[in-house]
């Protein structure tokens, strides 16, 4: 059961975050942080298909994570879900067409090792 939760959390998080990044890029840079402007931005985002998809995927991920926390230690749940870093960095390169240079790969690798050491 533990591994079913983990598979759902990892898949849903990866899909959700890549869709969120795609949707936000499509929306364009947010310049105005006054509440009224943020409200208008939210109204626009609520019609953005990528953002809607990402919210659905993240809701799935959130409830699966709650379920995981009830049967697994936080110190197990956190490093295992760091797998999403690898998957998302790969998808950022090939789907979002970001320039992932060696500094970013090195940084992401250091972070993954660090997360494992901190939480194991």
């Amino acid at each position, binding site marked *: 059961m533990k591994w079913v939760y983990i598979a759902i959390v990892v898949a849903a998080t990866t899909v959700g*975050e*890549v869709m*969120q*990044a795609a949707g*936000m*890029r*499509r*929306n*364009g*840079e*947010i*310049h105005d*942080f006054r509440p009224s402007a*943020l409200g208008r*931005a939210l109204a626009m*985002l609520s019609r953005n298909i990528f*953002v809607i998809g990402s919210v659905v995927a*993240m809701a799935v991920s959130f*409830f699966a994570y*709650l*379920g995981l*926390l*009830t049967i697994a230690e*936080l110190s197990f749940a*956190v490093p295992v879900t760091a797998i999403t*870093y690898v998957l*998302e*960095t790969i998808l*950022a*390169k090939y789907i*979002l*067409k*970001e*320039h*992932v*240079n060696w*500094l*970013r790969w*090195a*940084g*992401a*690798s*250091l*972070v993954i*090792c*660090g*997360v*494992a*050491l*901190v*939480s*194991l």
Partner: protein
Amino acid sequence: MSHEAARLRLKTWICAAVVVLSNVFGNFFLKKGMPADLPTPWSYVTVLFHPLVTLGVVLLILWMMSRMALLSWADLSYVLPVTSIGYALVALVGWLFLAERIPAKRWAGIVLIVAGVALVSLGTAPRTHKPEAGQ
């Protein structure tokens, strides 16, 4: 560094700080308020009205909003490593405020995370793709 690059970097760092802090404290309150088990599907809903869980959820909503704003101009492959400084922060908060001992292995992990974050945040620009039209 051009004026535009400096502006983008400052804006990125401020927004990243909001993302990190709301995530760290959101998860902290969520974990504190969670009961030992959730026996029925309905209990997954009622648990959201436990005060600490509610506070955690509110902070996680702020986290999601600020993260979306950040992703509207910054790369995902930049945001992911940089905002993971939160993992190190959680351990440091426990050490500073809850007098938790940090074993050598955990210090090593904190050093690796900080090094990874420094590499990406100081060594690469937040945005490598062409900004698209919009807003």
